[in-house]
């Protein structure tokens, strides 16, 4: 059990929440408390604010903080365009994952095709924006940094093989949508492995 932080400096809270998160184990709940405190502190500059909101959205998408995809999308709405990390790519990627979770939830609730189609479009739009943001600068500044989306939909991905089949969070946010939409599947392949697509 921990007491709330006495300080409200957003950059300090952001930094501390990430440190506690990276420390793992029993430190992680403290990371979640600090992340919430950082969201509540609204005096940060745009870059710090974007990082805080994206962290908070990631916590909701991973189910560590209640709110799910719905609250994650609300948080991401407050991010000023182009201010999130990786030249704005992170915001769009998280938004795509949130829409992916929304699609999965609607599918589980047997929603009509008319309800599913706009969500699918939102996913594709977000992935496209993420790819554009990624291509704007990242390949030049950090060529080894991938636009990592395969983990969230491709069941044969070697990394995701580490997730147990009965895991409570299979982290396959885009799998249902990719399964239903060949266009989205093609888009996901093309953004993940552009060279492979170009050679075909």
């Amino acid at each position, binding site marked *: 059990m*921990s*007491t*709330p*932080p*006495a*300080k409200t400096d957003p*950059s*300090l*809270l*952001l*930094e*501390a*929440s*990430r*440190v*506690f*998160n*990276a*420390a*793992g184990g029993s*430190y992680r709940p*403290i*990371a979640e408390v*600090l*992340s919430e405190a950082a969201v509540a502190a609204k005096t940060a500059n745009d*870059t*710090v604010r974007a*990082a805080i909101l*994206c*962290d908070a959205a*990631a*916590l909701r*998408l*991973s189910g560590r903080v209640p709110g799910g995809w719905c609250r994650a999308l609300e948080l991401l709405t407050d991010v000023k365009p182009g201010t999130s*990390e990786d030249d704005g790519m*992170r915001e769009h990627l*998280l938004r795509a*994952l949130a829409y992916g979770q929304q699609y999965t939830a609607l599918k589980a609730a047997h929603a009509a095709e008319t309800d599913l189609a706009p969500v699918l479009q939102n996913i594709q739009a977000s992935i496209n924006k993420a790819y554009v943001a990624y291509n704007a600068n990242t390949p030049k500044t*950090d060529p*080894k*940094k*991938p636009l*990592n989306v395969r*983990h*969230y939909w491709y069941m044969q991905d070697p*990394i*995701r093989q*580490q*997730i147990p089949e009965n895991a409570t*969070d299979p*982290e396959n*946010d885009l799998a249902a949508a990719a399964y239903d939409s060949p266009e989205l599947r093609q888009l996901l392949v093309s953004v993940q492995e552009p060279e492979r697509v170009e050679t075909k």
Partner: protein
Amino acid sequence: MILISGLITLLLVLAIGVVAAPLLSRVLRHRAAHSRTGPRFITALRPDFGQFSIPRATTQTFNLLISSMVVFGLMLVGWATGAGIMRAVWLLSGSAQAAPGTLLGLPPALAACGAGCGLTWLVILTQLVRAIGGVLAIAAAAGMAGALLGFIFGIPRPVSASETPPAAAGGIVPAAGASTGAAKRAWALSTNLTQVSDWLTKIIVGVGLVEAHKVFGAFTAISNTAALWLFGMRHGSPTLIGACILGSTVFGFLFAYLYTQLIIARLIAATDSDLDPRTGAAEAKLHDMNSWSESLVPRISRSRLTPDTIPSPSQAQIGAALALNAVSFEDLLNRSDLTEDTVRSWARARAVLNDYPGAARGYTFVLGMNV
């Protein structure tokens, strides 16, 4: 009758010891836990090296030494108790053949009192206190002498630049970003004591080797003198007093040596780093890092399995982190010029070096949290 009195006294002493020892231990522990001005010396005797970032094994080794010293002390007290009672019995039985008025004899009035007199108990008690106190005083004196040697041998000596081996030979590589000018210090700790310690160590070893053949004779003379004055060379005192002196000296030496090496050396090093301007430069370097920079700490990811590729910190940042990493958290808090920025930079240093639990301690302090 006298023998029975002696046995009853022995049983009483043992019973009091058995009851008092746990009670005393509990009282001391309670005071240490609930009082800020409690028996600090108990804590000092049993330091927790976990606070100094030293492996747990060191703490256990030190505690083992302390436990051995306690066991040794209890054995001495046990023997002194028995010897004191035996001496009282011997005196009261009229076997003592010593000149009246000397320490070995009893005053004629008391000797005439006879067995069963109330003064018998007084004699037994005083002999008991005399024996235990005498043996413990000898042990303490020998321990102090050993401790002085241990301190002299254990005190750290700073390595001067001319003595530092080249990097190719395994010497210390200066942190990246630390200029030659920065390596010069505005203030330095006095090394007078370390120099004296250096001379004394060499003198003691040199003279000790030359005079080694006289050591045994001197030791025997000291222990025999103590045994004569305390117990009239009876009850195995020549052997036991010798063992007491030898054991206490060894324990005193080991304790002081380890204490000096493990604690005093760190305090000196911490004070030294407190005076070192390179720490200030390292703090400034780390202070300049952006709070969202992933070279400081990775972002919170949606996935628990695939952290994004993390950019490495620059060489200058790593150098600054290494410079601050040498300062333990406790030493940091003891700094006279401590500020929140200092603690934050220290925590950042730990984070840059991927010691996130260590960094969390710093952030907990800065945020004023009670985790």
